[in-house]
């Protein structure tokens, strides 16, 4: 058996909720970490839920991602594991970010089981908040048609939206009006065994639909990346690219990977200078911006975390000025990750390239004396 399938009778969220409820009833888990609509209804927050009644109100597949799940999970587990077996329902990019954070020792993975799903992408949070009803309706249509207009720009170029490359335990796939539960990790089989849905060996239809979509997204991605590569060549283009940026650092604050309590770019070393020094710097060019060092911040942040950037686009979502910061981070991330053949969050065992090295590597970047 390759997986189990269910026909979706009501809506997707209810179908997924039923699976979760079953797993909790069968005492496989003590608590569930999952998005829930907030009381005022125009957005979502993650809840760690124990109470079965509250479990009724979950939205496992919200049309928007106000907080990157890994960031929320970091809040919960940074100081250590909980003595609860927790089922986490998260999008693939959230799970990959969580794994990166685990490598950075900001998340404790013990006692966590990850459930991912074929991610249709999310709508920009600011847009969603303005008219939730519109998007609530829309998301179902979108999933059916796998359309990407109006999604977060990063979502329409995301090529890791399904089960591969994301170390979830179980994955939920969608095709036609079916929901497929697909075991990813070794120990997920026993969870699957407990669910009494129809076993299925032939996954061709699902795989085909994923592959068609993947092809489309790959095309989008290379088109976008070649555009970006032109837009960001040289400091002038870069300055132009970040036009409008007010240097507020929101992008860093909402990014799941940027975990530092005190970002280097807000530290005293970096931001407290004597007036004379500011004036001297201003004199060199005739003037300087305040807040200073907009470029240092963005390029510096890239240096810190681009290898771990999962391309989720949360940064862009949190930017009050709509700077396409998620796209450029995704693009640069992709470039540097290629160098090390590294895919952030894919495999817990694989160290972040900057935290390790090989003696015999990267010689093409060395300026050795005996270079021909």
């Amino acid at each position: 058996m390759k997986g189990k399938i269910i026909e979706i009778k009501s809506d997707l969220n209810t179908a997924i909720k039923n699976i979760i409820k079953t797993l909790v009833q069968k005492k496989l888990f003590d608590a569930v970490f999952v998005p829930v609509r907030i009381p005022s209804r125009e957005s979502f927050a993650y809840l760690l839920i124990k109470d079965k009644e509250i479990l009724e109100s979950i939205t496992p597949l919200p049309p928007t991602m106000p907080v990157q799940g890994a960031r929320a999970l970091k809040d919960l587990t940074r100081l250590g594991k909980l003595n609860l077996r927790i089922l986490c329902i998260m999008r693939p990019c959230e799970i990959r970010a969580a794994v990166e954070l685990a490598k950075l020792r900001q998340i404790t993975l013990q006692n966590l089981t990850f459930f991912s799903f074929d991610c249709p992408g999310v709508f920009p949070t600011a847009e969603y908040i303005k008219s939730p009803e519109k998007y609530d309706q829309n998301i179902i249509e979108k999933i059916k048609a796998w359309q990407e207009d109006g999604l977060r720009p990063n979502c329409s170029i995301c090529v890791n939206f399904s089960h591969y490359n994301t170390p979830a335990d179980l994955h939920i796939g969608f095709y036609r009006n079916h929901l497929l539960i697909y075991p990813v990790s070794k120990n997920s089989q026993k969870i699957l065994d407990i669910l009494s849905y129809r076993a299925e060996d032939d996954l061709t239809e699902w795989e085909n639909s994923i592959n068609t979509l993947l092809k489309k997204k790959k095309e989008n991605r290379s088109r976008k990346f070649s555009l970006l590569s032109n837009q960001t060549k040289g400091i002038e283009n870069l300055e132009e690219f970040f036009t409008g940026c007010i240097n507020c650092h929101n992008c860093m604050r909402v990014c799941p990977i940027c975990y530092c309590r005190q970002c280097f770019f807000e530290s005293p070393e970096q931001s407290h200078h004597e007036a004379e020094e500011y004036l001297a710097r201003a004199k060199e060019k005739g003037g300087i911006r305040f807040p200073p060092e907009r470029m240092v911040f963005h390029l510096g942040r890239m240096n810190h975390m681009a290898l771990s950037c999962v391309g989720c686009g949360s940064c862009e979502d949190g930017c009050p000025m709509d700077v396409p910061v998620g796209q450029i981070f995704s693009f640069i991330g992709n470039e540097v990750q290629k160098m090390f053949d590294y895919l952030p969050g894919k495999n817990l065992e694989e160290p972040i390239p900057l935290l390790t090295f090989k003696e015999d590597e990267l010689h093409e970047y060395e300026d050795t004396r005996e270079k021909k």
Partner: protein
Amino acid sequence: MKALKLSQSPDNAIGSLLKYLFEQNKISAAFVLCKNNSRDYFYGLITDKNLLEKITPTTPIMPSSAGKMLSKLTMLEPLTSPIAVVLRPCEMRAFYELIKLEQARPDNILFISFTCKGVISIKESKDGFEEKIEAYQKNPATELTLPGLRQCCQICENFVPENADIILPLIEKNDLNNTTFLIKTEKAEDFVQGFEAETVEEELNDTEISKIKEKRARKKAEVFANITPDKLGMKGLIDIFGRCLNCHACGRACPICYCNLCYFDSADSEVGPKAYEAETETKGAYRLPANTIFYHIGRMIHISLSCIGCGMCTDVCPVSIPVGTIFTRVAESAQEVFKYIPGRNIEEKIPILTFKINEFEEIGEE
């Protein structure tokens, strides 16, 4: 008081004055709002007078609080040579609060400010900014429903920069072709000496000012009527702050929140797995990111006495929570208790940093 009149637009007139000050070596730099292109506004510390062509001091936008920026400039040591600063009244009041908090120094600064019609929120500047500016300029200051105007500006009654050295009475006149500089202090007189302009006697137009104040006070009453204690309560607070991402962008943009490492980002404020387990058990569920309401009330405790109602916090909030409106409301009632007006007088202590022996005597004794 003495006033100087120029038949130029306010931005050009300020430019001429700064140019003169540069040429006479009266200032070594100017700190003023600049524009790179139609989308890129920022505060610039300018030392080269040729760059004055980039300045746009009266464009209604506040990409960051000048008060906060000036504190970056002057925190470690006072300026040793004079600079001219053009900023809005609330930014100047924020700067004064930061001085009291020992985060800034006022030395060697010539303050130029103007009666302020408010700014367009930065999010609203992203599209149709030109048209919004046009509507803003055309309409009198008593018109509060201008497209994109910050809510905090619509209800701000402290739009006269009492402490500035030079004041431009902009909003009483709404004249784009003529500009007046009111020379308020002796310091300012020294600076403008020799600057070519028509010298007249003029005062701030109190009748116009109180008309605008009245209009804004009424608007404020209207806005605050929706956030009265009985409409808030924890339920009301959760309705307002429910979608908060706990990103703390509001605090980072707030001129008063100066801490390098905010308490709410520090390890002190973090609770461990045991506490999470316990709370999940009692409540049945636990919200993440945690402590959003805690953050907001905590920040109110920290800064509400100094909050100058600028609305920077609302502007940067990625999920458009009206943070500034709530903070302004709380600030007003907190400041009222101590009869304190932030940023008014540099000598006046922030109430929480001082006390009187004979006050609130009923508390603690019953």
